[in-house]
């Protein structure tokens, strides 16, 4: 049990970091929409079109690392071998 908890914590930590980095290592808050700039050729105006896209931020990373830390911490209170 102790071992499984630590393995899950490690997988969660590595997975969250990998996902965050792969998604662009966004140093801001998590986004579910991203702006796409579009220019109107006639007026020269620049508009914004919002596109649905999940971009994990530091809050996502922090929550995942906290979860991993809690799991790892809990593992210390679990007996080495359950009978």
């Amino acid at each position, binding site marked *: 049990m102790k071992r499984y908890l630590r393995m899950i914590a490690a997988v969660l930590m590595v997975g969250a970091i990998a996902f965050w980095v792969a998604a662009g290592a966004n140093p801001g808050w998590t986004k*579910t929409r991203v*702006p796409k700039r579009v220019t*109107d050729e*006639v*007026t020269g105006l620049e*508009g*914004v*079109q919002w596109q649905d896209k999940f971009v994990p*931020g*530091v809050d996502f990373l922090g929550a995942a690392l906290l979860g991993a830390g809690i799991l790892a911490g809990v593992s210390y209170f679990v007996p080495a071998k359950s009978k």
Partner: protein
Amino acid sequence: MKMKLAILVLMTTTSAALAAPQSFDFKDPKGINNAGFKLDAPLESINGSASGIYGTVAFDAANPGATQGKITVATSSLIVPNPMQRQHMLGKEWLDATKFPTIIFESKEFKNVQTAGDTTTADVTGTFTLKGVSKELTVPVKLTYLKDKLGDRVPNQKGDLLVIRSNFSIKRSDFNINPGRFEDKVSDSIEITLSVAGASPK
């Protein structure tokens, strides 16, 4: 004599009609019109935009200084990238979009009007209404009159376009948006960018 009088009346009526301001409708079928806003915050600035823009502006190319108009933004159309921030922004504590569904700027007077070709710059004084609070503001604007360009933007329509651009700042505390609170998290100052085009079909 009667003939001369008739011609005079006709000429006066025609010149008055030609000098009459055109009405431009700012409901944009292409969805380009937008009002951007930016607030400084510790981790990253909050950048968003609103697309629910409508209103009319009466513009006379021969006398741009006489421009009058009202632009309205639907509060519910304000978008920021983070869903929780958007929920808070539209909620009761911040903009209270349900109770105050519109943000309005209505012009009163144009000053420092300078026209070069199709472009006019001016300082516009008007009433800005946000969260039910109305304040008089003077903001710089740039108007670009695009004669006969509506057809290039909207197929099968003839007419003119009027492009309005403006950048200005307001303080949220002036509009009863959490005055004196959360300034360590969200700046008091809000930078606003207006980029809109209106159509006057013929």
